[in-house]
């Protein structure tokens, strides 16, 4: 569900804006970066914080 909520939030943002998602260790920490990259966004992960820069 974390990726769904992240995707909805990204829809509201402009290209180049960044979203930080803090996850507990677990499945979402693996799924969210993978799904975000697959959707074409730039992704970096530091610890439990995922930073996603919205694609154009």
């Amino acid at each position, binding site marked *: *569900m*974390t*990726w*769904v*909520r*992240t*995707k*909805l*939030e990204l*829809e*509201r*943002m*402009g*290209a*180049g*804006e*960044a*979203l*930080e*998602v*803090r*996850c507990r260790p677990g499945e979402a920490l693996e799924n969210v970066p993978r*799904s975000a990259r697959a*959707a074409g966004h*730039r992704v970096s992960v530091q610890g439990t914080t995922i930073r996603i*820069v919205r694609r*154009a």
Partner: protein
Amino acid sequence: MSDNSRRGFFRELASVVNSAKDATEPTPSVPLPGDLTDAEIERYSRQLVLPEWGAAAQLALAEASVLVIGAGALGGPVSLYLAGAGVGRMGIVDDDAVELSNLHRQPLHFTPDVGVPKAESAAAKLRFLNPDALIEPYQVRVEAANAPALVEGQSLVVDCSDSFATRYAVNAACCAARVPLVEAGVLGMSGMVMSIKPGRTACYRCAFPAAPTDAPSCADAGVLGPAAGVIGSLQAMEALKLLTGVAPAITGAFLQVDLATAELLRVRVSRRADCPDCSAL
């Protein structure tokens, strides 16, 4: 629903950072017409996650009013999928009562429903499926005289009737009111589906100017349940595409489906200059 409850998850879990250094030329956010509740996000999560789908498509469905004509073999899967997908308001029109011979192909009706008006039986199941959807049963037969009033104000009509007279009446009413329409028919192990944007694409009468004189009914020729399920599912898919715009609908053509050979044939149809239903649009 307050903003707090709508966006509580992100208040705790995430923060939006306007990052000028990441954006060579930042573009403004596109405002959405509203927010989805937490329950809506969970209920519709498997479609919201689709790349083609999103909050805008979901909210378009929530605001839509769809008339489903017929609560039988096609109307069952159509109304199930549309209610499940989140169509906000749906009218279900059928003047028949459930018969034992319906049950092999009409998934909204169960054995204890025999004798119950189909519109009521369908509405009861659909309300269980999605309590957020407003379901309005109409126990009437659609005819040329009442079709315009039923169609008026709808976002979309899905014709799941089993009568050529009804199809022509619905097509004429939808054309006159410029309400998009999804037509379909099923018999034996085959069927067809066609989407219509009145005034812009060929209508049902453009494709079929006159009813066949010797067309058998399901009672005469038979029909397999899964064939009706496939055609009804295609109709529901067309309805979702027309309501949200997430993919192009089958317009200017009809899709012929042969389930016996598993073959699909897309037949192009042009608007007719002499069509009595849509040529004046």
